[in-house]
């Protein structure tokens, strides 16, 4: 079992320490300092502080977290809700799991800061169903926090600061990691993203004003409050401050989690993971989970922050770095990625429902030597039909990997079609 990242920084400093998962141990490590600081301020000031810190959501989209909080309606006429997105299901991403398992009180503290700032009186931590251990750790932590007076009425002696947390288990659908799909699922409905408007800040969980943030996003907020803006912005880049947890997987010597500053060069991230396995040549890297476009080896001199990656036609996503060496068949990557999206599409929107299956079938045919020359045209056209035309961003996520692979590795698709077989016998099995 992983108990701590291979490289640590402020967020994961105490993750090897089992007592950090108890209320006492957490408080002993200056726990809840951030919350104490927050309640000494006006809620609007807290929102303003998080906003100006530049903290970007760590769930994939990279939206300014404080700005998101500011969308919540003011006043107390309606019960307001925070939802913590712990449905981490992006292939290649496994950071939130460790935060929940090793730093559950960081999550709780972050939620309470958010609750103070937005006036939310209830929050739901929605955790991927497969993360049974993370669920039990979070549940225990919530119990302890309640017993210790950090949940309930008049928290920290602040009159009217009431909050409670519910830990909720998902049932195993990728799409429930999408903000509104999660809210539907939380409400007991089929996990399908909602059309917007209305937005969650007006009509979210159970129809109440809601803000959804990622596990890691909440965990950073306590440090911003307790240690100050200047300290926080000392990490990372100007547009993407702080650290993040890179989950490095694939053909590296030492796969695992690495808490590194935003903007760390991708080469350094791979080097921290021990470099490509067996000293082989690097072929490609997916920088932010399977849904982000691939970068070929020639383009990996890039810093790991959204502003730099988007210049290369990719995105930081969840920071799940997938490394592929020269044995890898890129058509197989396309088959595996497109199979995942074919399987996980919720099936509401026409393009996504029908298109993800079509893309997968074409890729599969090419990989197995049954590709036709016109398939190349289809593989460049069909993802375009999906991109940006559906209720949620899932269809984009399904289109991008194939588009990225076609952009950088079109010759491999052509080889498969010409040779009527896969030219990479040593590639991973599918």
């Amino acid at each position: 079992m992983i108990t701590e990242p291979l490289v640590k920084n402020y967020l994961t400093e105490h993750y090897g320490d089992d007592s950090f998962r108890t209320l006492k141990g957490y408080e002993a490590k200056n726990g809840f300092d951030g919350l104490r600081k927050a309640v000494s301020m006006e809620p609007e000031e807290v929102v303003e502080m998080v906003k100006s810190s530049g903290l970007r959501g760590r769930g994939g989209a990279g939206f300014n977290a404080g700005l998101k909080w500011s969308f919540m309606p003011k006043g107390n006429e309606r019960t307001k809700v925070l939802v913590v997105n712990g449905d981490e299901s992006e292939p290649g991403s496994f950071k939130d799991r460790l935060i929940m398992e090793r730093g559950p009180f960081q999550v709780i503290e972050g939620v309470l800061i958010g609750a103070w700032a937005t006036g939310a009186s209830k929050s739901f931590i929605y955790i991927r169903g497969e993360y049974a251990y993370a669920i039990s750790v979070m549940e225990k932590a919530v119990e302890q926090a309640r017993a210790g007076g950090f949940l309930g009425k008049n928290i920290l002696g602040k009159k009217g600061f009431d909050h409670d947390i519910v830990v909720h288990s998902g049932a195993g659908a990728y799409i429930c990691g999408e903000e509104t799909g999660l809210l539907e699922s939380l409400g007991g409905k089929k996990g399908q993203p909602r059309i917007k408007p209305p937005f969650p800040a007006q009509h979210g969980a159970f129809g109440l004003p809601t803000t959804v943030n990622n596990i890691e996003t909440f965990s950073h907020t306590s440090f911003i409050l307790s240690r100050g803006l200047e300290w926080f912005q000392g990490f990372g880049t100007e547009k993407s401050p702080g650290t993040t947890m890179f989950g490095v997987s694939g053909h590296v010597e030492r796969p695992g989690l690495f808490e590194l500053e935003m903007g760390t060069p991708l080469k350094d991230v791979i080097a921290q993971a021990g470099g490509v396995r067996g000293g082989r040549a690097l072929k490609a890297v997916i920088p932010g989970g399977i849904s982000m476009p691939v970068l070929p080896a020639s383009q990996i001199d890039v810093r790991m922050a959204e502003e730099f990656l988007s210049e290369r036609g990719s995105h930081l996503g969840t920071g799940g770095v997938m490394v592929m060496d020269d044995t890898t068949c890129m058509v197989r990557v396309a088959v595996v990625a497109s199979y995942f999206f074919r399987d996980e599409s919720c099936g509401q929107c026409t393009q996504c429902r029908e298109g993800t299956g079509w893309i997968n079938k074409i890729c599969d045919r090419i990989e197995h030597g049954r590709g036709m020359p016109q398939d190349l045209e289809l593989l460049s056209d069909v993802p375009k039909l999906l991109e940006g035309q559906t209720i949620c961003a899932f269809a984009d996520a399904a289109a991008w990997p194939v588009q990225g692979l076609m952009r950088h590795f079109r010759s491999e698709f052509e080889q498969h079609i010409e040779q009527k077989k896969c030219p990479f016998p040593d590639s991973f099995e599918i």
Partner: protein
Amino acid sequence: MPKITIDEKDYEVADGLMILQAIDDLGLLMSGVDIPHYCWHPKLPIDGSCRMCQIEIEGVPKLQIACNTPVKDGMVISTQSERVQTARQGVLELLLLNHPLDCPICDQAGECKLQDYSFDFGMPAGRTKEPRRVAKKAVDLGPTITFDQERCILCRRCVRFCREVPGTGELGVFNRGERSLMELFPGTQLDNDYSMNVADLCPVGALTTKDFRFKIRSWFLDDVETVCDRCSTGCNVYASRSNNKIYRFVPRLNDDVNDTWMCDHGRLSYKMGRENRLESALVGGKPASFIEGLRKASDLVRAASESGGTIVASASPFSSNEDLFTLRKLLETLGAPPATFSVPAGKADGILTQAEKAPNAEGARALGFQESDELAGAKLGIVFGHVLPATALTQVEKWILIDTHASDLSGKAAVVLPSRVVTEKDGSFTNHAKRVQRFRRVVEPSWEAWSEGALLQQIADFAGLDGWSEPWDAFAVSKRLCDEVPAFSGCGLTELGFCGCELSK
């Protein structure tokens, strides 16, 4: 009122609406402003999933769906730009990946949105090489509907309808992604009183009614606007006819009456005109020619009126305003008391159907007829059929029955004259909310039968009554009705239009 520009034309639309609804409210959707759509329906919650109604809005980077984008003042919209057309083509191409190309044997062909939009906006040829989805065929969803799962394009109109309108929610979409299938929830049947509406809602041939399935190709049908007469709601319908035969009723939009729904009972009532009809006159219970019947009836009227004997009449709430007005006039001519009428009662369902199971009880009331289940003692009775039991007529010596269908009354009447059902005549009904609605003649009976009013006029004419020689005409009578009965002013047949008018107070 926000002003918006669509394809370089300016429109003023109501505030607070989504674009598609605003366009539809102006009556321009697909007839002036081409925004194709599948999942959107004006009377159902917005789903936003078919993605067919995408449009380009100036200053908005992505294409937006017209069904869920609120109207904003100054919006500049393009429904024909190249991006929009490519997106539409894409949706159609993707829908056709798994939709069987069985139009030649599909009941929906000719009124299929997938067919229509493919012709209008689709690609000249498909590019898929994959085998199509194999799913269930001819699934029995319940007593009224057959389902072809392969043809379903998963717009979920039927799912939302069952959830929202009858509130029964039998249908759902199961599984996800390309394995999504519309199905019944386990252990249920699509067996609610409004089940057949899902066939109207289905944009393709996935849901068809067992009643209409395989009866006729839709292009042989023409539609006549009429009104259902099974209860006092008076749901607006189209009667689809071909060769003097009605094949179906489908509900017609009227926001003040039935939105676009109707109950299954009413929908199947088009068959009423076919079964167990009275096809000839009866004299003393024996078939007679129409002229014989007419002579006999007029002899009875003349005799009763000359001998100074009382004449009473029982009207029917199934008769039109015009027929009832003619009866009122005749009774006035004869110096007889006003007619009574009786209304068959049932249950209201809180959705559309009313407890009064007849279309024109309000019309009878507005004409001053009294409700009664019995007929006072008299020498002669004039009875409109359908409603009164034979026991109600014990005090009447002889009676003339005017009826559409054979019943246990037919054998006991001195004379029976065959009349026309609602789909065989022109006229108007006044529904429970005092809305006067026009119905139109859809077909002609193949035997001699006339509306109640026309029969009364002929009886009166044969009996030699003054002022009854002019042949009966629903439009002329309607005009006199409007002139003479203040409540009906402005409610003439030619003034009622598509959706009817309310009675004047």
